[in-house]
């Protein structure tokens, strides 16, 4: 008998044996108490797993089944959206020690965080983004970072702050961002932009940025999403204003702007009276102009069709010619070095210099 066949028979037998064994252990025999064994154990105290190892119902479950749970019918109003949004414990006013940094003067950095709410790495990243935005946009984005639960001091109004600090310099959008509570954010535009961008548009930009921020859970991520969306919205503000040209920065911008305004005002003042004078006569002027053009065209056509005649004088014949006396010029075009100007005085060959 070959070894392969022996192995196959052995495996077959082993399989049958395993199947029979598993069939015999499919329903294991549970242990059972011997007489008096349980009572003896109970007398000794607690039996581990006695709750599970008995067929008696669980006492608490029984009580729960017998008496249905009582529902608490409390007369409490549901929280409003503001209550949900607001932090549970307000942080109070911005501490007075930070007022100079916040409200003292126009910030030198696009990100104002005197309370160090951001880590140095996050601060650097966000500031880098704001700097990038300023380089790419005509409207700067200044962000004041405030704790989510903090309040503005009663003495400070954000409109007054923006007007005082941002009435000069490049156009700017100023955002007061409450870290962790983006829905409390506020936006104000510098006075040079308020006429061009409506409050509705400002509101839309803010709402859109807040929506983006609220998609994140981490306050820093929220802040980042807010800034990105706000930068995009400012771009669209620029497009709406049609101011795609690059503006000079700082004082130069102001000087240029004042000069432009002065020039435009001066030019407008000069043109306005002229326009007012000309306007009533405009229809007559157009008629006259049309008549002049028509006249010019007619004159052009007639002049092209006009025939010119020469008086016929009696001319004595010369040199025996019945029709012509040979008057006229001869020109040589043999060489470019002999221009017509040098050929004007035509003299006999024997008078030419050799």
């Amino acid at each position, binding site marked *: 008998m070959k070894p392969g066949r022996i192995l196959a028979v052995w495996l077959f037998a082993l399989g049958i044996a395993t199947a029979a064994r598993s069939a015999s252990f499919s329903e294991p025999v549970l242990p059972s108490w011997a007489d008096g064994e349980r009572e003896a154990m109970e007398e000794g105290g607690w039996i581990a797993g006695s709750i599970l190892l008995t067929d008696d119902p669980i006492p608490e479950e029984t009580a729960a089944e017998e008496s249905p749970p009582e529902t608490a019918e409390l007369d409490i109003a549901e929280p409003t959206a503001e209550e949900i949004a607001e932090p549970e414990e307000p942080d109070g006013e911005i501490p007075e020690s930070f007022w100079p940094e916040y409200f003292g003067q126009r910030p030198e950095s696009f990100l104002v965080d005197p309370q160090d709410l951001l880590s140095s790495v996050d601060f650097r990243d966000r500031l880098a983004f704001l700097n990038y935005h300023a380089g790419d946009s005509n409207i700067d984005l200044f962000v004041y970072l405030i704790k989510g639960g903090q309040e503005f001091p009663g003495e400070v109004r954000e409109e007054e702050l923006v007007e005082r600090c941002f009435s000069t310099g490049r156009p700017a959008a100023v955002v007061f961002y409450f870290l962790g509570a983006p829905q409390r954010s506020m936006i104000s535009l510098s006075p040079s932009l308020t006429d061009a961008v409506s409050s509705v548009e400002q509101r839309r930009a803010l709402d859109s940025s807040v929506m983006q921020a609220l998609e994140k859970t981490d306050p820093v991520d929220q802040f980042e999403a807010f800034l990105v969306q706000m930068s995009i919205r400012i771009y669209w503000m620029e497009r709406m204003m049609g101011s795609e040209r690059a503006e000079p920065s700082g004082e130069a911008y102001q000087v240029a702007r004042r000069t432009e305004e002065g020039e435009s005002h001066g030019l407008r003042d000069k043109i306005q009276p002229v326009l007012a004078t000309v306007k009533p006569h405009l229809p007559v002027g157009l008629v006259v102009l049309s008549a002049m053009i028509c006249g010019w065209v007619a004159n052009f056509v007639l002049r092209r069709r*006009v*025939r*010119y*005649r*020469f*008086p*016929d*004088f*009696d*001319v*004595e*014949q*010369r*040199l*025996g*010619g*019945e*029709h*012509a*006396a*040979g*008057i*006229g*010029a*001869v*020109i*040589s*075009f*043999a060489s*470019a070095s002999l*221009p*017509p100007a040098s*050929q*004007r005085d*035509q*003299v*006999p*060959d024997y008078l030419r210099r050799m």
Partner: protein
Amino acid sequence: MKCPRCVQRIHRAASSCPHCGFSLGDADGRYGSEEVRLRCLTDSAGILRRGERERVESAMERISQRFPQVFVAIYTGSLGEVSNLRQFGFWLLNRSAFEDLPPDKPNEAGILISIDPESKAAGMVFGYLLDPFLDESDTFDCLSRAHAYWLEGRYADGIVRALAHLENVLVKKSRHARRDPEHFQRKVLPPAMMGDLVRRIRDGHRAPARLPQPDEEVAP
């Protein structure tokens, strides 16, 4: 007015050049005394292509339309020496019979441009009709306009350019002649005698005698 051969100034009624004795008979001896039949645009040298011929003929026709008395003729051919071109133009305008011209247009009203592409020279002569109105400098200016084109071998362009300038010159002269015909008439009058000169000077200091008009009554 200059002699076609020696280019010296000659008298306005000279039958031959007082300097060299040149006359049409001399030119006949060189080119022939028979009448030459040709068309206004004769391209014997073959320097004009078909499209170019049309452009040139159109420019020639334009001058004939604006100046009904005048016509332009163009002859191209090899003539040899440059100095002969002036004599040739003089001879050709006197001896040619243009087939495509109406009989009421004599050669006196002609302006002939001769181009010799071999010796690279061109000349322009005109008949007695234009004798008071044009002079040598006018024709020289016309040929100067074409000089740059002819240097490059663009003969048709040069001819069209020359004719355009000629048209402007003729317009100016015609207007001037209408305003002041005496200015041109004086150029062709026979030379005044001394007595005429004195009489004109004296007449200038007197009021002109008023002649009776036909419808006016004359007192007995």
